[in-house]
């Protein structure tokens, strides 16, 4: 038998804030992209801005970097109001999706460009370039032009360009989106390692939830220029504060069943699930229209069904094996319902399957406001 280790202390202990965004508005002419946005990022924190395309993630990042003039509000970096400061004076390094390497300069030239602009002494520049090249293992590439590099190498150089600046805050704008899947996974790990090594603040924009979940200390889910929820990956996944976040996070996405709550029982069609065990945000059960959400991987199947608080029988409509899992499509109360089963489970189409639902692992949202109940 293995002994259980005592729980480790959480690594991130937020001491003070590295970035503070206060009441930020940003308009492009008459288009309001960000409205009254507030966000604090702790020192050494890895914050991921996650959201679908066009929700204002890059815009927010550009505001932090000083590449866009804000319409209203303030931005503080390291307890300094930098709202009007030039990008180079803010103590940030930035990595772009398209790498944005200067094509006519060598890798070395790319790395040292910012340092030369800052008029650093030659020896210092050489030192920093060497150290960055060391960390990122791009020393053999220093004399090459960007055109002679692969995608992964280019992105490393782009990260190196932020690294040599010796700053406390790194901003990443979808740095891995242009890479193929394998490289993306590799570089993701490298970025995480880099963060653990440097312990600096990172704000990382992505639309890929896997990237967000694996990298982040905290995730800010954005939609239409607003932050829908800010929390640790566990909170975002386990306790989504509204239906949008619940739907956005998780793949395959959460099952939703529209119905209503009466006297602590959720009813929809012929379903009647007692909500004992569900923790309402207000502390007590609320009556009225509601949507029940449950993740495919939280539906109980197999032998454990007999222990679950509520059971239903469904007919298997479709099976998608992914190797490690099998995804089952079926109907519950007139809604498509997906269930994740073990890859080894024996099921066939048309078979009747017994499923268990545990309210403790489900989410309930107000039918009108879509806020978590």
């Amino acid at each position, binding site marked *: 038998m293995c002994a259980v280790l005592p729980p480790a202390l959480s690594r991130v202990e937020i001491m003070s804030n590295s970035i503070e965004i206060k009441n930020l508005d940003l308009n492009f002419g008459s288009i309001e992209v960000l409205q009254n946005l507030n966000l604090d990022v702790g020192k050494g924190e890895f914050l991921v801005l996650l959201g679908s395309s066009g929700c204002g993630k890059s815009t927010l990042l550009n505001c932090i970097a000083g590449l866009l003039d804000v319409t209203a509000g303030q931005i503080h970096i390291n307890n300094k109001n930098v709202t009007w400061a030039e990008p*180079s004076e803010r103590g*940030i390094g930035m990595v*772009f999706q*398209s790498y*944005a390497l*200067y094509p006519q300069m060598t890798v070395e030239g790319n790395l040292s460009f*910012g340092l030369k602009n800052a008029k650093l002494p030659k020896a210092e520049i050489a030192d920093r370039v060497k150290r960055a090249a060391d960390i990122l293992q791009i020393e053999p590439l220093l004399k090459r032009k960007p*055109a002679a590099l692969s995608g992964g190498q280019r992105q490393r150089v782009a990260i190196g360009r932020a690294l040599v600046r010796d700053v406390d805050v790194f901003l990443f704008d979808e740095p891995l989106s242009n890479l193929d899947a394998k490289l993306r996974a590799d570089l993701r790990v490298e970025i995480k390692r880099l963060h653990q090594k440097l312990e600096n603040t990172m704000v990382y924009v992505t639309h890929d939830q896997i990237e967000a979940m694996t990298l982040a200390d905290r995730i800010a889910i954005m939609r239409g220029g607003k932050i829908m929820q800010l929390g640790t990956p566990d909170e975002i996944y386990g306790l989504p504060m509204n239906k949008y976040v619940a739907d956005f996070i998780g793949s395959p996405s959460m099952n939703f069943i529209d119905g209503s709550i009466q006297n602590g029982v959720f009813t929809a069609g012929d379903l009647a699930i007692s909500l004992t065990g569900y923790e309402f945000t207000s502390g007590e059960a609320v009556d009225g229209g509601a949507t029940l959400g449950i993740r495919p991987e939280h539906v109980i199947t197999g032998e454990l069904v007999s222990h679950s608080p509520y059971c239903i029988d469904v007919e298997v409509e479709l099976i998608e094996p992914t190797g490690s899992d099998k995804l089952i499509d079926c109907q519950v109360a007139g809604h498509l319902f997906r269930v994740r089963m073990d890859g080894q489970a024996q099921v066939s189409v048309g078979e009747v399957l017994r499923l268990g639902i545990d309210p403790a692992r489900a989410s309930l949202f107000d039918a009108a406001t879509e806020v978590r109940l």
Partner: protein
Amino acid sequence: MTKPPPILLDGPQGPKPRRVLSRRNIFLYGTLLVITLYYAMPLYVMIVTSLKGMPEIRMGNIFSPPMEVTFEPWVKAWSQACTGLTCKGLSTGFWNSVKITIPSVILSIIIASLNGYALANWKFKGANVFFTILIFGAFIPYQVMLYPIVIMLREMGLYGSLGGLVLVHTIFGMPILTLLFRNYFSSLPEELFKAARVDGAGFWGIYFRIMVPMSLPIFTVAIILQVTGIWNDFLFGVVYTGPETYPMTVSLNNIVNSTQGVKEYNINMAATIITGLVPLTIYFVSGRLFVRGIAAGAVKG
């Protein structure tokens, strides 16, 4: 155990053979040949005529090659051909044109590229209004501006001088060149500009260190446009300069159209070729540069 190699069956295999003399090829190359002849013929006539003496020309066979090659018409065209008043050939006009073209091309390209860069990357207040006015300028017919500019140049004391004409060419090149540069700079990835700003480069730093090195193709296009346009200009030359400062096109016109004496076709032909030589050279030299610039741009990081 290895499988036996597959046996190829009869019938098509490998690349499909292409016939050199297919109907399509005959049609294509035939058309190209006819068009080439159509354009090359006048040039041929000009060259052979410029190498003949007057007696031979009077015989009337304009297509026949010269029986006796002579370069005298060329020498005369350059240094002795008579315009209305003087007999100094094209040389004065040539050097005037050089003195007009070089500063006009350099000035207009520097200013227009800076304009285009500022418009594309530094969206300053009123940029759109400025741009609209500039583009509107491209559509105003020159004739409308001719006389007002005469007055303006006279007031500035530049009327009749080379400097005045340089100024006029620089200004008139501005709309189209600015448009050209603005569109090119807008097509460069915006993130490069942002990266350079984060790296602490300013307006000039980004222009010289990032933008210009990436813009060889568009600078080449601008040079071709401006050199040929300004070198070939006749209207502004004849209006804004005097006999001493006439550009080459005006000298050429005066030589070809001079009413005294016999028409010396060989000298006229030689003079015309000499005048056209500069734009031709530019096409040949920078055409190759141009292709290289495009190719270099295609593999940009």
